[in-house]
């Protein structure tokens, strides 16, 4: 992780507290690369319905970099890193909706919280949120056939509902609590949820894996009746996933790696080839 003041990075700070939403998909390494300070400052953003320049809303330091640092409250700034394919955005604060949605590559690190649609329909890259996130992280947008298609989303805090909705590939790991309908309609991919989860995880999933560790969870929600228990075992693939997370620096307890898991398959109203693995302490 890079700190402020490092060579060759671009630093943005909001000039004011935004009272209406800002749309700023131009805050993206793809667009900041090979642009002068002046050119970056002239990129278009929307403050509500007013089209403005980036420099009207933000203090900008630096130029021509794929390494972007955001300082301050960006919780009303939407679409940061939308569709980005490379480079890095480090957000030292909270961030608004659609952060990293449809991104194809690169890295986004959020020190604070992120709002809904984080990494929605993403196609690659890494998003790491230290705080909590809203609904629909890694999900499909309304009407779409599938959500996240590749890449990785790591969340240390809690999440809202329908995380990983209709995801097809990729990995989502959540340290904190997750909301209802985790991995609803999943087509593939892997979700690892370390704490408590809301109701109906895996509903309507066709394929894919949801792993529940239910840490500190005294009263886990019952699975849907359309999931059926198969066996208790130690899935090797899970060891690979957990080791990979650890290598990246995401906290994973040793006992999970060698642990046993109850395997349920479902959702039998759909294809039924999905699975929920529940850690057995």
């Amino acid at each position, binding site marked *: 992780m890079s700190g402020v003041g490092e060579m060759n990075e671009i630093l943005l700070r909001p000039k004011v507290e935004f*009272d*209406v*939403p800002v*749309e700023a998909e131009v805050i993206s390494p793809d667009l900041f690369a090979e642009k002068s300070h002046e050119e970056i400052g002239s990129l278009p953003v*929307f*403050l*509500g*319905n*007013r*089209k403005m320049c980036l420099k009207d809303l933000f203090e900008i330091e630096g130029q021509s970099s794929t390494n972007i640092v955001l300082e301050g409250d960006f919780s*009303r700034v939407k679409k940061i890193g939308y569709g980005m394919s490379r480079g890095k955005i480090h957000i030292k604060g909270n961030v608004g*909706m659609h952060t990293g949605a449809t991104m194809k590559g690169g890295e986004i690190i959020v020190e604070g919280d992120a709002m*809904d*649609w984080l990494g929605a329909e993403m196609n690659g890259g890494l998003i790491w949120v230290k705080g909590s996130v809203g*609904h*629909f992280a890694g999900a499909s*947008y*309304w*009407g779409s056939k599938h959500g996240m298609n590749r890449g990785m989303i790591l969340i240390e805090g809690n999440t809202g509902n329908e995380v990983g909705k209709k995801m097809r590939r990729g990995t989502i790991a959540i340290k904190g609590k997750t909301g*209802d*309908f985790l991995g*609803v*309609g999943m087509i593939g991919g892997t979700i690892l949820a370390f704490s408590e989860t809301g*109701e*109906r995880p895996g*509903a*309507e999933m066709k394929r894919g894996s949801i792993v529940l560790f239910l840490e500190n969870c005294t009263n886990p929600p019952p699975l*849907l*009746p*359309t999931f*059926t228990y198969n066996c208790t075992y130690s899935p090797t693939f899970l060891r690979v996933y957990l080791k990979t997370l650890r290598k990246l620096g995401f906290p994973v307890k040793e006992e999970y790696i060698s642990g046993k898991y109850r395997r349920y398959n479902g*959702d*039998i*109203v759909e294809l039924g080839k999905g699975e929920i693995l529940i850690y057995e302490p």
Partner: protein
Amino acid sequence: METISATCPFCGCLCDDIQIVVENGKVLEVKNGCSISKTLFTHHDPDDLVPQIEGKKASLEEALDRAASIIRQARFPLVFGLSMTSCEAQRKAVELAEFIGGNIDSTSTFCHGPTTLAMQSVGEPTCTLGEIKNRADLVVFWGCNPVEAHPRHIARYSVSPKGLFNPAGRRGRTVVTVDVRATPTARVSDIFLQIQPHKDYEVFEVLRALLKGKDLRIDSVGGIPLDALKDLVNKMKSCKFGIILFGMGLTMTRGRHLNIEAAISLVRDLNQFTKFLIIPMRGHYNVTGADAVLTWQTGYPYALNFSRGYPQYNPGEFTTVDLLRRKEVDAALILASDPMASLPRQASSYLEEIPFVVLDCRKSYSASFATVFIPVAASGVSISGTAYRMDGVPVLLKKVLDSPHPTDEQVLDGILKRLRQR
């Protein structure tokens, strides 16, 4: 004294067989209408309404000027309501929202918005209400209570009428109600399945699994014995024409759009066995029209934003309750709805912090808090036009009584004209 044909502008049934006896601008009698319809036409008394600015009487011109100035200054305004007015006014509202680069949302937001979301995920096998009348031998009311919310639905469309291929009427149909409480609708049904709150999703899943011939190791779900559900599935599979009619009992409970998705998926799957369709029971008389007009003009039915000059759609982001709860909008224009009465207080209280304009044909809660209130003539009472029934059938609204007030369309046009001159 004359008798005028009318269409009742109350609920999504849009009964167009109302006969109103009028004398000297007073309604003497409402024939064919339900009790609400009768009240609606007889209690219509627009004369005591005047335009107001900050609670003080103003001229229409002053009110329009002030409304335009509020909207002109706004950077993230909201146009909300739309469901109790004609399509003609709705068109104008879209034009206004687009022109000002605002958000526009209808009351679908808190009635059948989730139904739209489900439809966008899995589709919707549906039909017009006449198909039920003419063919249905199995009618399932799920989380809806037409006896109180759509008072003539049962008599006119779904249960009692004798149809082309169902000459026996009520006797030719099995009626099932699934609800948390034994509503009056449940009491007129052949079968009532009392479901625990928030358990609709599980029950649909079990029905779908049973339909697929899966064995389930449970005795009951959501408070309903498995045997009762097996029986229901058998009835569904073996009927000639089945219909599910559903309401807020599905859209507003935990699971929301996913409850509907499960219901639609069940109905869709049933078509491998027989004919089975589903219709949402839309509440306000022209909320379906709001969906339709917005969709044909913009591609999307509600929860729209025009900040960037083109429509963006995202329920959860541009829906009224969320915009208000997150305190994002900086002005609002409300027509044909009363959010101060109908939205959660946690959300609607924010309206008191921003300037907002209300157009209404009667005194509403929102009107009394509005920065600018402009009384308008009531569509379907004092203005003709088009409205869409819950099943998407367009119905003519008729003028019955005169009104001293302008129409929604005229007021919106007045505001738009002022915004254009600058």
